[in-house]
């Protein structure tokens, strides 16, 4: 019997990783790891809780000859403090790349986020992959996201043999997703900024899973935005998801920030205030063309799901 090729998937506790593992486990032997917790993914998936920065992490590479790495694991700004997050997301990823190099892993896919572009009133629409990343200019809480990207890009060009693919998706939404904007869609009442309804893009978790699998398997190294060419204003999205918008005062900006800090809602973090005001519309055409990818789920499918939760 032909033995399956082995791949490493990080961030196994996340909903997206679970879908990716489920989709790929037929064809690959999967080693799933997570910084936060050991996840029971059922047989035959081996699962570990591991800190990338500990020496024991290398044992996983010693024991398995990986065909590729799908690096989805990131500690979000809601989870741990800035220092721990930087260590896990940036220093940890460097360790991962170094091990991939040492053990000659031929391909690595890294999941990033459209947040790295930064929400600014000066953003043109349809930002392409060459647009400078300005998120760290807005808030220290997104420095680790931008640094993770910079690190990936350095390794992408300095070590072409790693065949690194970086994906920058728009808002991922759907069952199990717990990012900020997904939480807002699933809530009964969601904060919005008075007088602001920035244009947004959403991709269903099933489509994002497919995008990751296609990009991993075809492996054409580079940086790619992943987003559908369909758009909706944020306040319309909240209403379409069956939530009731709660209007938060938007001027002066210091009042908005004070309210966000006072409320301390996970779904309305002060460092994301600009994303509630200004659009960050990304151009997903390069990914769509390179990987012949088109999302199957529509915006209506996404909002139907959230309405069904209410």
């Amino acid at each position: 019997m032909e033995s399956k090729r082995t791949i490493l998937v990080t961030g196994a506790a996340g909903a997206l990783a679970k879908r990716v593992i489920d989709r790929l486990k037929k064809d690959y032997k999967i080693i799933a790891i997570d910084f936060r917790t050991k996840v029971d993914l059922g047989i035959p998936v081996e699962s570990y809780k591991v800190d990338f920065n500990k020496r024991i992490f290398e044992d996983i590479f010693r024991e398995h000859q990986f065909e590729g790495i799908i690096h989805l694991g990131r500690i979000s700004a809601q989870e741990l403090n800035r220092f721990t997050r930087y260590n896990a997301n940036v220093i940890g990823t460097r360790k991962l790349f170094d091990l991939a190099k040492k053990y000659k892993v031929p391909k690595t896919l890294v999941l990033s986020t459209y947040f790295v572009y930064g929400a600014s009133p000066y953003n043109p629409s349809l930002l392409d992959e060459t647009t400078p990343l300005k998120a760290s200019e807005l808030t220290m809480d997104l420095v680790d996201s931008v640094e993770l990207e910079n690190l990936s890009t350095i390794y992408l060009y300095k070590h072409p043999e790693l065949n690194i693919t970086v994906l920058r998706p728009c808002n991922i939404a759907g069952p199990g997703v717990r990012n900020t904007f997904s939480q807002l869609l699933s809530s009964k009442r969601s904060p919005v900024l008075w007088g602001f309804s920035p244009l947004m893009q959403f991709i269903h978790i099933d489509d994002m899973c497919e995008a990751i699998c296609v990009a991993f398997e075809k492996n054409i190294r580079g940086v790619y935005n992943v987003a559908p060419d369909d758009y909706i204003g944020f306040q319309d999205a909240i209403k379409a998801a069956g939530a009731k918008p709660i209007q938060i005062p938007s001027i002066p900006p210091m009042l908005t920030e004070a309210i966000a800090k006072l409320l301390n809602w996970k779904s309305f973090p002060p460092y994301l205030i600009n994303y509630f005001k200004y659009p960050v519309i990304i151009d997903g055409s390069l990914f769509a063309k390179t990987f012949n990818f088109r999302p199957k789920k529509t915006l209506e499918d996404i909002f139907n799901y959230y309405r069904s939760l209410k």
Partner: protein
Amino acid sequence: MAAKKPNVVKKILEDPSIEEYINIFPNKVGSKGYDAWGFNIKNMKSNMRLAKWLFNDFYKVEVFGLEHIPKEGRCLVIPNHSGQLPFDGVLLAYALLTNPNGPRAPKAMAERFLPSVPFIGNWLNSMGAVIGDPVNCERMLENEEAIIAFPEGVRGSNKLYKNRYQLQRFGSGFMHLAMKHNAPIIPVGIVGMEETIRSYADIKPLAKFLGLPVAPLIIPFVFPSKVYIYIGKPIYFANDVHKEHDIKERVEQVKVEIDKLLKKGLVKREEAG
């Protein structure tokens, strides 16, 4: 007096003639009615109703030269800018939307601060106002859209009342784009907006506190004023000069054409009394 307000609102909301224009807009939009720049066809019905009321009843606009707007294909419509709020853009857009020679749903390049103004930013965005970034303009020209651009920017719209009808410095971005993308430039002179909202000073510390680009000291009243829009003939510039000095000369040519159209409008207004 109390009955008058509901009548105005009723007139705006129950105008059936808007439908015929909505149904012929060729704009490509997604499943929720939006395009990538925030234009929303679903909002157009109510937005156009309000714009129609402003155009016909409030500002009583008269337009000359609509035949110079191409029925299709890329073009840059270049007017003077005035009136503190970008209602001049709304009126010009409405004139193009309802052009009997061939309606166009134009995009308007707006001041970069527009997205930071609550309500107005979103409202104008949904009607086709887009921040004046060359990347936006290039993409939309490639999409064969009609684009309104104000080369004076806030220098024009937020100038003081004492400087009315004095064209301010023009940026040269529109000329670069017109030459690069082989788009005709259509000069436009708008007379009447300067008198609607009058600014007597710019209170900079207040602007900084509110996080807004300007805080004009205005009389809090929109003065009714008859508006004249003069649309000039298209001007074509070949992509054959590259030095900024030569490009600025071409910008000056356009400015002179707009100034002529403004003077025409001022004479017309004087004649009308």
